[in-house]
């Protein structure tokens, strides 16, 4: 058994009244991939941020290679050889790939006065090559796809020659092929004796890549065990402390003969969308699969009017419509739940009530034009009750809700608006398994009640589990459409998803 | 340093005027001077004169004014505060001849004598107005300009301000005199330069735009210095006749060195002195002249060392 590099014991952390960690512990060995799992808000990120000096612990000890250490800031962590890839994107978009990789440790020349960009770019391209990445180190990061940005973050972390590498939900923005690539990198690092902490909500990955699992719940340590000795179901029940609803495959026949509510013809946007055609029926869940960067989000945004299109027609209930902005899309009964919840989904610093009412504020006016707060409160209380949003009250700021509950609030916003067509973009990204299953339930009941849903997801099991019909995109085109029958498999979808021209 | 103490432990000094108001014999008289500005040399010179009179007559004064001559409202607030300090009398240089009338009426009701200075108010409330006629003084500048450039040619005005009373009077005084008396002289450009640096670049642009320019009149210290700087930066010494206004070290030096032909100066020290003197007299119930002309001088190389000129100039 290899030696222990990090041992955290009795860690307490309090955030202005919130006890995020309660005498929590964690142990990492060299050359292992150690999964850290738990529901949203269990304290995984906080625990690791304490290890990397982003936050300071209130109580407890950190041992590194047998000796107790203090980690006052991220720099100190780097010096120890501990490095973290954060949950949120952590690159400077205006800097180049190489500049981002070497930030804080730029090669210098001329007595350390000037930057040696040539050396930096060279070293960066060596690092990128080592990781089998074909990225020009002088490209600005803003020009890269999300997946590549994620890869750059990993390369950046590796470049510190870390003994300990923490990955906080590295696959949240990746799809299958990129995940494969990431796993290859992880295995390579494990070989070199690097200890890796792997935080993820995707249970399937744990079996594939991790050696041990530590489960956290509600800021407390629950258990640590070898991955090989435990089932995913057991992990889940440790995490949530209760049973999870496992949805069956939907009743695929139900939507077959119903009317078409949305039709998209020849949707084209320079460089991102090429001649996208599809239809959506009443009461149907249409799954949209594809690799990251396939153009699924772009399609959704184009339909919703969030981005301008170059050509193409959209028909709602058989009528051709022109959508010049989201405010016009909602008039046609289209709602869109963005993939980036924190940045584009909700008003983090405003309360649940306002967030629920945001798309329908105009309806909450009395004759004098005054806002009717009481009615607003009633409606959002109804939403909170109906969707089982876990919040102490509708006056709570959305910032303090867990990811899953934030997502429910956003769904509630669109339900209040009473949209016929709902586009869900990665509805379960970064959401724990418990919340996930509740959202699945919700989607199914919405479809059953006659709403039409487009569900974009990078998780194929999710697509297969929920959709009535599946379309697959690649490089801005629709490369395949298939009913979700027994022939719809992950392999077939992947074939379409990698169906590149030439 | 001294005035600073004034502000620092202000409570005794602020208390004394109110006492003074109640029983003038008991303490010093307190006379706030609300000026048009405090940052510029001209107003600093007025302040010096006022302080001189205050020392001689053993009264206490404060001197303040807004940052720019556009801030009519701020000046009114200062006047309001001055009234609330229950002064024995007030010296006031109105930025606008009408805007202050309601407040001056208040002063009248409170039986606080008001002495206007620099420019008048459209009202008979001020018991006396200590002033010079800016327009006349600028007219003299025009006469001198005409004389120096030989009665014909192009001249320009670089005024310090487009909207303030002093700016307008000096500009128009010069312009009208030229138009009335010197048909062969053409005013080809009037521009406005707010500070020394801007005035310098402005004067240069004027000179570039009008290669045949023979003279420039700068209507205050900043504008005049701008013109001098421009002339020396463009190496046009001797080719452009520069006439200034006000005094100050730079203008005096320029006149001595021949860069500047001459300048008109009001007597700011005298204005300050006379204002306080009249205020004290008025407070004591003595009669004061309705108009006290503090006078102005034309000064150039020939007379700059004369005593009566020296008395008016300030560095």
């Amino acid at each position, binding site marked *: 058994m290899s030696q222990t590099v990090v041992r955290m014991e009795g860690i307490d952390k309090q955030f202005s009244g919130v006890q995020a960690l309660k005498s929590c512990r964690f142990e990492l060995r060299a050359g292992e991939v150690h999964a850290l799992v738990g529901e949203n808000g269990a304290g995984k990120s906080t625990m690791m941020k304490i290890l990397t000096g982003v936050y300071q612990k209130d109580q407890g000890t950190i041992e590194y290679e047998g000796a107790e250490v203090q980690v006052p800031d991220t720099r100190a962590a780097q010096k120890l050889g501990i490095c973290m890839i954060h949950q949120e994107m952590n690159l400077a978009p205006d800097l180049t790939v190489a500049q981002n990789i070497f930030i804080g440790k730029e090669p210098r020349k001329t007595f350390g006065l000037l930057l040696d960009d040539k050396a930096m770019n060279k070293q960066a391209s060596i690092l990128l090559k080592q990781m089998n990445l074909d990225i020009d180190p002088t490209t600005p990061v803003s020009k890269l796809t999300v997946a590549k940005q994620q890869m750059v973050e990993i390369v950046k972390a590796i470049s510190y020659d870390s003994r300990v590498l923490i990955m906080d939900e590295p696959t949240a923005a990746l799809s299958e092929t990129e995940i494969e690539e990431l796993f290859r990198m992880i295995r390579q690092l494990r070989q070199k004796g690097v200890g890796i902490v792997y935080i993820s909500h995707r249970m399937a990955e744990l079996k594939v890549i991790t050696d041990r699992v530590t489960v956290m719940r509600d800021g407390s340590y629950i258990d640590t065990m070898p991955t090989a000795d435990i089932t995913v179901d057991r992990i889940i029940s440790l995490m949530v402390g209760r049973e999870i609803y496992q949805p069956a495959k939907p009743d695929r026949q139900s939507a077959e003969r119903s009317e078409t509510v949305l039709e998209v013809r020849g949707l084209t946007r320079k460089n991102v969308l090429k001649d996208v055609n599809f239809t959506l029926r009443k009461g149907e869940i249409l799954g949209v699969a594809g690799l990251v960067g396939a153009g699924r989000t772009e399609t959704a945004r184009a339909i919703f009017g969030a981005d301008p299109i170059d050509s193409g027609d959209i028909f709602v209930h058989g009528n051709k419509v022109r959508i010049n902005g989201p405010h016009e899309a909602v008039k046609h009964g289209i709602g869109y739940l963005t993939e980036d919840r924190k940045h584009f989904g909700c008003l983090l610093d405003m309360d649940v009530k306002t967030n629920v009412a945001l798309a329908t504020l105009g309806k909450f006016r009395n004759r004098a034009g005054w806002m009717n707060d009481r009615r607003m409160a009633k409606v959002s209380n109804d939403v909170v009750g109906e969707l089982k949003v876990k919040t102490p009250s509708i006056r709570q700021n959305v910032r303090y809700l867990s990811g899953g509950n934030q997502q429910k609030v956003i769904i509630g916003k669109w339900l209040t608006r009473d949209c016929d067509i709902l586009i869900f973009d990665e509805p379960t990204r970064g959401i724990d398994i418990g919340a996930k299953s509740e959202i699945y339930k919700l989607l199914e009941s919405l479809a059953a009640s006659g709403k039409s849903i487009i569900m974009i997801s990078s998780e194929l099991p999710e697509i297969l589990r929920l959709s009535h019909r599946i379309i697959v995109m690649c490089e801005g085109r629709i490369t395949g459409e298939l009913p979700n029958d027994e022939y719809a498999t992950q392999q077939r979808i992947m074939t379409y998803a990698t169906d590149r021209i030439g | 340093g001294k005035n600073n103490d004034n502000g620092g432990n202000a409570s005794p000094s602020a208390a004394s005027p*109110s006492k003074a108001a109640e029983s003038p014999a008991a303490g010093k008289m307190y006379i706030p001077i609300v000026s048009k500005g405090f940052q510029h040399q001209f107003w600093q010179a007025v302040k010096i004169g006022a302080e001189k009179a205050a020392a001689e007559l053993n009264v206490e004064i404060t001197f303040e004014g807004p940052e720019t001559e556009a801030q009519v409202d701020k000046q009114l607030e200062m006047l309001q505060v001055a009234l609330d300090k229950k002064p024995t009398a007030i010296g006031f240089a109105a930025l606008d001849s009408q805007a202050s009338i309601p407040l001056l009426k208040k002063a009248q009701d409170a039986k606080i004598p008001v002495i206007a200075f620099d420019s008048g108010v459209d009202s008979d409330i001020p018991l006396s107005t200590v002033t010079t006629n800016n327009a006349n003084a600028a007219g003299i500048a025009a006469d001198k300009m005409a004389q120096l450039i030989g009665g014909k040619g192009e001249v320009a005005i670089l005024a310090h301000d487009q909207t303030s009373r002093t700016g307008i009077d000096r500009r128009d005084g010069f312009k009208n005199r030229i138009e009335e008396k010197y048909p062969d002289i053409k005013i080809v450009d009037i521009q406005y330069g707010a500070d020394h640096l801007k005035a310098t670049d402005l004067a240069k642009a004027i000179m570039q735009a009008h290669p045949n320019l023979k003279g420039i009149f700068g209507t205050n210290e900043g504008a005049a210095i701008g013109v001098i700087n421009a002339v020396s930066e463009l190496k046009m010494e001797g080719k452009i006749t520069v006439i200034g206004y006000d005094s100050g070290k730079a203008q005096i030096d320029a006149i001595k060195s021949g860069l500047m032909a001459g300048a008109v100066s009001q007597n700011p020290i005298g204005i300050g002195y006379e204002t306080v003197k009249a205020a004290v007299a008025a407070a004591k119930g003595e009669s004061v002249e309705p108009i006290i002309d503090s006078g102005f001088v034309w000064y150039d190389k020939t007379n700059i060392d004369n005593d009566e000129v020296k008395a008016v100039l300030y560095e």
Partner: protein
Amino acid sequence: MKQATVPTAGTDAAQKPSIAFKSGLQQLLAFGSLILLVIIFSVASSNFFHFSNIVGILLSTAVIGVLALGSTFVIITGGIDLSVGTVMTLSAVMTGVFITMWGVPIPIGIIGGMLTGALCGFLSGFTISRMGIPPFIATLAMMMIAKGLSLVISDSKPIYFTEYEAFIKISLGSFLGDLIPGFDIPNAVVVFFLAAIVGSLILSKTIIGRYNFAIGSNEEATRLSGVNVRNWKIVIYTITGLFTGLAGVLMASRLNSAQPALGSGYELEAIAAVVIGGTSLSGGKGTIVGTVIGALIMSVLTNGLRILSVKPEWQTVVVGFVILLAVFADIIRRRKA
């Protein structure tokens, strides 16, 4: 067991009353600073706490206060309006043009002046939301344009309202004094407080206010919720313009004249008042009450320093420090919260 599935419910509930309390405290803090200043100056000078001086302070708050009220709206959207100073002047000038040159009835002239401000606000809003120009730049340009136009239109001369007694009454008359003898609060002060009430109602009771906060909190999320953000931003800048126009009318009436060169630099005073009042420059947070208190702090400070005969150059320094302190105190409070 519930505890386990709803991890933060308990703690959140515990937070709630303290949040309400803190929001009270926020007002209290700015209000406390104001009271503190008043006490300090009252002790330091017997001339400070007099009816006529307090009225003087209120009167001198009125114009800048109304400007600050207007600025509060754009600042809550996360924007800024640098043009309020000169647009105020332009509105005053236009009021003068309407009343004294065109001879329109005074009330219509006043509305005309306010609409001038609104039009400028509309144009700023348009350049910002339709042309995508950052607010700082768009309103900087508007500042210059309004400054120039004021001079052009007035021919660089003040426009006097001497023949229009009623117009002057708007600021300096006192209908309160007519009602209650001795209670001579000038109308300008009453107008300021009325404007504050209207502003407060707009901000808290109307859809404009809701969108105002939503845009400031997260503009893109608001847009993606189907809100026509571009149009609402124009509306909000127009409201700021309307308040600015009102400030112009008050200024003209108070000075009995439209002074075409006045106003540069007032935008910074207005912004300072807003920020001292606890509104965040990054948007999404702010109150009208805070702005009123912020504006009062600024004018109490200026007045007090003048009453104490502090030299004008030191006054500037002191005001600088007080702005720093006030904002720092606010930050400390929030950090503790």
